[in-house]
């Protein structure tokens, strides 16, 4: 056996408590992605993924809108804006959890209603590493005006749409595993054990009106929403190999699909 390819990426995890100014988030991202990761910072507050062999990448532009609001704008290597959004923290301070790796950056802001911002490049394995034109998805809890983005649930993200160059918020791949048509995903074995599945990304196929799969989220699993946000689990990923995953609070569930997102922590 072997560790599944989509779970075999480098990773970092950081939690910073009591953040009262989003400049701390911006500097934390610089530390996690650039100083300790392999992203670059072409200009202040702009964090760019390591380009692929053909030069494809996506990047995050961060800026301080106010002490409690940070811009999180994602764009691809062609200059297409994927989404220009924001996230808020509490004026009294919020814990922010950062899950990062070579091809992903997921921010889980701890508030009464947690807020998410992320940029992810899918792992297309076993398809060729650099074949997909638009293997990126992103999200931000709020739009640029600070209003909550519609469909703040796990399965939505901004991906390439049917019109080339235009990204839109579309549902990603769900697993309908119930034995009727009202219970979509129990995430449980009949024995009562948790079941975990890959989180698949999809985008519109070039020149078609169909949304097709384009690989798995790196270092990410989908489990049942019985798992509380913040829970850490050691999950077997190969014979004799476990990895530690942490349940996401922001954008981490979907009430219809009963799912919970988990990202690798250790």
């Amino acid at each position, binding site marked *: 056996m072997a560790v599944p390819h989509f779970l075999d990426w480098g990773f970092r995890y950081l939690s910073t408590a009591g953040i009262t100014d989003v400049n701390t988030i911006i500097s934390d991202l610089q530390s996690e992605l650039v100083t300790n990761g392999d992203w670059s910072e072409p200009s202040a507050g702009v964090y760019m993924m390591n380009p692929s062999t053909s030069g494809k990448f996506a990047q995050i532009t961060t800026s301080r809108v106010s002490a409690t609001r940070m811009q999180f704008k994602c764009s691809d290597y062609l200059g297409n804006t994927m989404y220009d959004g924001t996230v808020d923290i509490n004026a009294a301070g919020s814990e922010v959890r950062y899950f990062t790796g070579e091809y992903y950056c997921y921010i889980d802001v701890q508030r009464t209603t947690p807020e998410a911002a992320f940029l992810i490049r899918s792992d297309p394995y*076993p398809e060729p590493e650099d074949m997909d034109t638009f293997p990126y998805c992103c999200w931000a809890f709020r739009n640029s005006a600070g209003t909550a983005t519609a469909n703040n649930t796990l399965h939505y993200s901004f991906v390439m749409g049917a019109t080339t160059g235009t990204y839109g918020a579309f549902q990603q791949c*769900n697993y309908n595993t*119930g034995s009727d*048509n009202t219970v979509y995903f*129990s995430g449980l074995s009949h024995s*009562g054990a948790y079941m975990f599945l890959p989180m698949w990304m*999809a985008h519109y196929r070039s020149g078609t009106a169909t949304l097709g799969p384009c690989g798995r989220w790196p270092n990410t699993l989908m489990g049942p929403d019985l798992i509380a946000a913040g829970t850490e689990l050691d999950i077997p990923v190969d014979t004799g190999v476990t990895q530690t995953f942490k349940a996401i609070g922001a954008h981490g569930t979907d009430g219809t699909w009963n799912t919970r997102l988990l990202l690798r922590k250790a």
Partner: protein
Amino acid sequence: MAVPHQFTDEAAHSRLAACTDVSEIETEFAALATGLTDPWTDSGGGVYVSPVDADGRWFDLTFARQSATNMDVKMRTSAGTTVLQGRFQKPATNDPVDIFVGNHYYDIEAWLTTSSSERAEGGIVDLYPESQTYYDQYYYCITHRTTLDAARANVARGYVFAWDGAAYTQDNHWWGCPEGRATTYDTMLSAATGLPLFFHVYHSVQNAFAGRVYNYLWATPELTPWATFSVPVDNGVNYNFMVVPRVPYSSGVPRAMIRVP
């Protein structure tokens, strides 16, 4: 890497190119099933017993010819409980019939057109990596028609009889491919390459995962029924799978594929 556990079942397949009488189907099924390395047992009288696996699991089938075009099939558990009894019919014309048999399953597809069939299928699911015996109701079965020859209300692929906590009832028991709600996700062709992607077929009972179906895969609906694909199942290992008709119930429109030699 390793070949996924549910593909370790043997896979036999035969096509009767011009079946004139359903008795030919039983004869061919018997030849395939008893010819496996770990063979079924022909108990006589149309009764065939699947091989007892390492965990003591097995089931039996009873074939009963009703007419040249109508076959009755009954599937029972190892405890003698009937999972389902029903029938399938073949057209009066001498159309093909495909028969798939493994150690834990069978499927008979009597062609109606080049894209649809009447079928009878059933088997035991693979509970790996959990204990194969953590519960006893690991059977599934479907026949296109009832014992009164009425077509069942839903014969979509995956809409099988399985345990509901009290009895074997028909429901939408097979899932597992990633899909979108509504119509937003409607292909399993790779967005990057356009190549078809394949996914495990999960069985569910009482709204919980309850194993995988031996030697089955979900495939994208663009694939043509009866086409055969060589699918990589491990590093350097490919198995052949044949697309069979009928799409699953409800959202998502994948097709099923069954392993062939």
